[in-house]
């Protein structure tokens, strides 16, 4: 022990940057950082210089000029005289819409398939295994095109609804399933309907508080209140009652066949449905595997202990296994949500007007401002991905193991 001497101090030599393990890692990191910065500087400088030589410049002034093209699905007011920036916003909203819808359904598909894949029923578990293996091993673009093609080829065209003896007919005279999309009745908000809507919101809040109360009762007294049927009742009854009390202010606008297409009602476009369904079912297969991994990560002793306490299998899953499994499931789930958002950029394959199709497609093409449009697109996808990550990380922190 006493033979070990203190390291020599004070005499720092330049060669120590390489030879001394205390400094070596820092040296290399500094070199790497400088090289990285230099290469970015080189690329950026090269770009600007070459653009200048070609007589081009980087300018975003095109965003203010009229877009000149129409978009088939728009959540906000838009026509061909709106500006390019408005077209980009329409695209952004469409991207967010399909990504949001697909995240929800993919989670539902994924959790169902993941749980069922662990089922003791041989047929069910094998069916789910087949689903997972088929869907996650074929590229999502192919699924989008397959589903869209099937939709357009199998569903009747609007003109099949015409004539005295039409080849296709509407469901209940209210729903029309065509190869251009599904037409459903749209609510028309008459005077007084605000009361009905407020009642509905109030009953949702009521359900939330009722469930909180039921949980509290369970923890305080051990009494288990029924929650499912009261929730269902709260959801429907007050709103329907209020609707009749107010004299039926909310009416429905049914789709009617007129001219080339159905008019009236709400239209869920075929591109949206195909993209939504394809993204959900494809990503659902990945989420199923995450869920399965999460469940299997919970030790068997947990469910055996819960069973010994007399819990039913459904409650074991929802009260004991899934809450613990969530810790394993959520981190990979975040990346699946990011995948959905990014994969939604394949929308142009089926003519869905997402941001890649408007800003990165038609706008880019009409204005020729490729670099500007692509930079904006990168910025958008980066922002939205980081936001999703941040939100999901907050959720992850709330369910992860609390270390006290």
């Amino acid at each position, binding site marked *: 022990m006493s033979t070990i001497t203190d390291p020599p101090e004070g005499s720092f030599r330049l060669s120590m940057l390489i030879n001394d393990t205390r400094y070596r890692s820092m040296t290399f990191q500094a070199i790497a950082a400088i090289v990285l910065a230099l290469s970015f500087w080189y*690329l950026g400088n*090269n*770009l600007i*210089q*070459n*653009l200048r*030589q*070609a*007589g*081009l410049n980087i300018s975003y002034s095109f965003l203010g000029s009229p877009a*000149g*093209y*129409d*978009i*088939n699905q728009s959540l906000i007011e838009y*026509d*061909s*005289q709106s500006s390019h920036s408005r077209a980009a916003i329409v695209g952004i909203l469409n991207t967010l819409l399909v990504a949001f819808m697909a995240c929800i359904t993919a989670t539902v598909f994924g959790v169902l398939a993941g749980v069922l894949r662990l089922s003791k029923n041989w047929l069910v578990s094998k069916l789910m295994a087949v689903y997972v293996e088929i869907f996650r091993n074929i590229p999502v673009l192919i699924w989008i095109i397959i589903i869209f*093609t099937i939709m*357009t*080829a199998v569903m009747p*065209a609007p*003109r*099949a609804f015409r004539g005295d003896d039409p080849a296709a007919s509407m469901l209940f005279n209210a729903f029309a399933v065509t*190869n*251009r999309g599904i037409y459903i009745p749209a609510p028309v908000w008459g005077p007084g309907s605000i009361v009905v809507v407020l009642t509905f919101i109030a009953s949702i809040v009521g359900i939330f508080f009722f469930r909180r109360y039921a949980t509290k009762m369970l923890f305080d007294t051990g009494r288990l209140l029924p929650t499912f049927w009261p929730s269902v009742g709260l959801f429907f009854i007050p709103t329907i009652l209020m609707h009749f009390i107010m004299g039926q202010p909310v009416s429905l606008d049914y789709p009617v066949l*007129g*001219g*080339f*297409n159905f*008019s009236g009602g709400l239209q869920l476009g*075929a*591109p949206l449905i195909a993209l939504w369904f394809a993204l959900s079912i494809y990503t659902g297969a990945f989420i199923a595997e995450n869920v399965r991994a999460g469940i299997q990560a919970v030790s068997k002793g947990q469910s055996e202990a819960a069973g010994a306490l007399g819990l039913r299998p459904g409650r074991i899953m929802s009260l004991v296994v899934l809450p613990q499994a969530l810790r394993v499931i959520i981190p990979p789930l975040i990346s699946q949500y990011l995948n959905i958002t990014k994969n939604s*950029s*394949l929308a*142009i*394959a089926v*003519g869905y*007007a997402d941001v*890649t*199709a408007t800003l*990165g*497609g*038609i706008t*880019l*093409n*009409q*204005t*020729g401002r*490729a*670099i500007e*449009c*692509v930079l904006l*697109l*990168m910025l958008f996808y980066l922002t939205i991905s980081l936001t999703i990550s941040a939100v999901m990380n907050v959720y992850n922190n709330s369910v992860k193991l609390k270390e006290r």
Partner: protein
Amino acid sequence: MKTSVFFGALTVAGMAAGMASAATLDDVKARGTLNCGVSTGLVGFASPDANGVWTGFDVGLCRAVAAAVLGDSDAVEFIPTTGKTRFTALASGEIDMLARNTTWTFSRDVDLKFEFVGTNYYDGQGFMAPRELGVSSALELDGATVCIQTGTTTELNLADFFRSNNMSYEPVPIETNAEAQQQYLAGACDVFTTDASGLAATRASFEVPGDHVLLPEIVSKEPLGPLVRHGDSDWGDIVRWTLNALITAEELDVTSANIEELAASPTDNPEINRLLGTEGELGAMLGLDADWAMKAIAAGGNYGELFEKNIGENTPIGLARGLNAQWTEGGLIYSPPFR
């Protein structure tokens, strides 16, 4: 898609230096092949045949330029471009010229820094509808669902046409012609719109072309022509005058059949002599051989021959000359004189 555009943008950055400094003619000669951007497959204009050999009206122009510059009409690398990638490919120097049913517009010419060297096909946007729909005019299309091949001037013309006629429509923008066709045939859209020549070409590839009608309205002017980058006027001149040589050849009745004979010795017609290089120094002015135009014409024939062979009335495309007849026959095809 996104990445390809991005890489395209990077390529602009990476290759623009080479493009601005070196002359395209020298590059092409050094490379030994001409990189010609064409469409991804539009029968009659540019599509590979059963043996993978590119043929078509636009392809003919590429081959003529290659013959004029390199003396070999097969020394062409055909680079298929979509409506979206074509301008990036040209701006970045990936292709030396673009011959891809590209409409000559102000902003493309001025803002995108390209140079349209001429018009090889005067076109206009039309509509195709199934015969059973019973539509006889585009003005009856209020409320229709319209399939569009995206990335073209078509979207803008369509929006303008419906707006000025106070009609509504639902656009279905589709990336490629093939997918748009499939949507149209499945009835997911009522009408299909693109340039009238493209419609004729598309209809010709249908199983029963007679079930579909082309509506009489032509809603836009679409002068289609080859283009090159700004900044290399010498190269632009070569492409421009190769096209003009093909047009002049038709006007002067110089065909691929009689060109050997006419070029063998000076004829009575001085313009033919100047065109074919038996008189004057026109080739040297371009930096090419004296017989450049002769080789260009011999490659696939003159303008009229190319038209008849690829898209004329005896082909499945079946386009009449119409506006694309020589000026002497009431059309718009007109070449400045060779002198």
